[in-house]
């Protein structure tokens, strides 16, 4: 009778296995424990709170064959792709925001450097709904989407269903359920409860949709000291909480530091050239201790 018949996404607190609070781990240990070669990983943060420190740790630990999910791959996935960690990318907008291309992504897709990667692309609306459906434990998301777009021709995960009440044709996509999600947030309390504030993106959905989750934070505080309806993720819904100060730079943390727009512009030149990129990676990631 103790055998669980439960196949739900999130394996939390059953009578056999309980989590009172998230475990506090070092960045090294959290990535070593939860990001396995071949895993499906979502590192989220919509422009804001992008988990760069964790991404760099994944590069340092030379994780391979990852399927990376992210609405906006941004620089962090450009770096992971260029470093050779990635087998497949699931995304909806792959540019350097306001600047131009992600040259490492393009080099991988167009020229196969450092190796060819598979891509599966969606629209933002579909990915946002797919994260939402993953958090809600559903196998699919339904949206009024992809009307007239040719994306369904190149993404066989996009299907269409008929509403049983109105007959309307609606798009359906599989929900997103990563093996592990990694997000950055402002702060956690001593039980691992996490506050995300400002542009909250799909952070909460990413954590709740995943089997395991790592949340890096700027600091640990005694009291989150927040308002009743803040975006707080309870510690018992998180696998590991990691302190990573400036953990989202050159992205930003609302209330802590600004987006380094200058670096985003400089990245264009760095990433355009394989050698310049390799040198940057060497200096700023491989040889950059635990944090970067």
């Amino acid at each position, binding site marked *: 009778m103790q055998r669980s018949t439960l196949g739900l996404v999130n394996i939390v*607190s059953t009578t056999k296995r309980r989590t009172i609070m998230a475990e506090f781990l070092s960045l090294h240990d959290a990535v070593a424990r939860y990001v396995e070669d071949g895993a499906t990983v979502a590192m989220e943060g919509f422009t804001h709170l992008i988990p760069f420190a964790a991404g760099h740790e994944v590069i340092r630990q030379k994780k391979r064959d990852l399927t990376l999910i992210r609405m906006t791959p941004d620089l962090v996935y450009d770096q992971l792709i260029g470093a050779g960690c990635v087998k497949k990318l699931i995304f909806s907008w792959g540019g350097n925001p306001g600047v131009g291309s992600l040259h490492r992504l393009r080099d991988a897709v167009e020229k196969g450097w450092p190796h060819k990667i598979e891509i599966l692309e969606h629209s933002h609306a579909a990915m946002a709904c797919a994260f939402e459906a993953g958090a809600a434990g559903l196998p699919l998301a339904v949206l009024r989407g992809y009307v007239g777009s040719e994306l369904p021709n190149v993404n066989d995960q996009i299907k269409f269903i008929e509403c049983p009440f109105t007959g309307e044709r609606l798009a359906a996509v599989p929900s997103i359920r990563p093996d592990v999600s990694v997000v950055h947030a402002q702060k956690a309390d001593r039980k691992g409860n996490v506050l995300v504030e400002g542009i909250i993106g799909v952070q909460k959905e990413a954590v709740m949709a995943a089997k395991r989750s790592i949340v890096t934070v700027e600091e640990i505080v005694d009291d989150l000291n927040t308002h009743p309806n803040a975006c707080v993720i309870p510690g018992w819904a998180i696998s590991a909480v990691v302190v990573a100060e400036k953990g989202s730079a050159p992205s930003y943390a609302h209330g802590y530091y600004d987006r380094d727009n200058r670096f985003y512009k400089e990245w264009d030149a760095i990433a355009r050239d394989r050698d310049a990129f390799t040198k940057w990676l060497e200096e700023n990631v491989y040889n950059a201790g635990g944090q970067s």
Partner: protein
Amino acid sequence: MSLEYTSAEMMTVTAARALENGMTCFVGIGLPSEAANLARLTHAPEVVLIYESGTLQTKPDVLPLSIGDGELCESALTTVSVPEMFRYWLQGGHISVGFLGTAQIDRYANLNTTLIGDYHDPKVRLPGGGGAPEIATNAHEVFITLKHSKRTFVKDVDFVTTLGFGRDGKGRDGVPNIGKGPTRVITDLCVMKPDPETKELVVVSLHPGVSREDVIEATGWEIRFADQLESTPEPSAHELEVLRELKDRTDRKHAGEV
């Protein structure tokens, strides 16, 4: 030393003891709420209580009268919208125990909170399903607590509002992504668990001073008893004290005295 306590107190204390630290409990209003808060105030300070009003990890000082009293929000870690509560937290698989009361329960632990009589010409119209239908299927397991009587414990409920194990005991067989269902029923007379094979409720423990005959008389079907029938441990003085203080505080608050 023998303690004096009522059968209602015995029920609440026994129900409270079913909860443990680290469980996330989706709490029904009334008896489940009383038991869950007693657990939190005694042996399980780290039990996570969640109410369908959106209040996550709440620690009310008095028992809420409604499922959404201000006390629940003020003492919660955070409060989310009701759609988020049902979608992300319950359906998302984050609830280890759904703790429910009911108006009627049958031998397969199906619950009826809809009506007595015929649906289209009810003798008694009850409040309805509320959160229970999906709590019972999406929580990893379900505890049920209610007073024992022939009126409430019936062979077949008039209406299956909420699935126990179905009208034939096989209602969860082969259903994907469904919780274990009711794993214990706590009344003022005894504790019952479903038979591992047939899923019919079986008495596994009698409360002190309660006889088999008492249970048989208060149950609307030929109730079975476990081979190893146990005697439910008595409430401790501490549990009774905490429970009585909690209820006193609650009564004073709801009478508008505080």
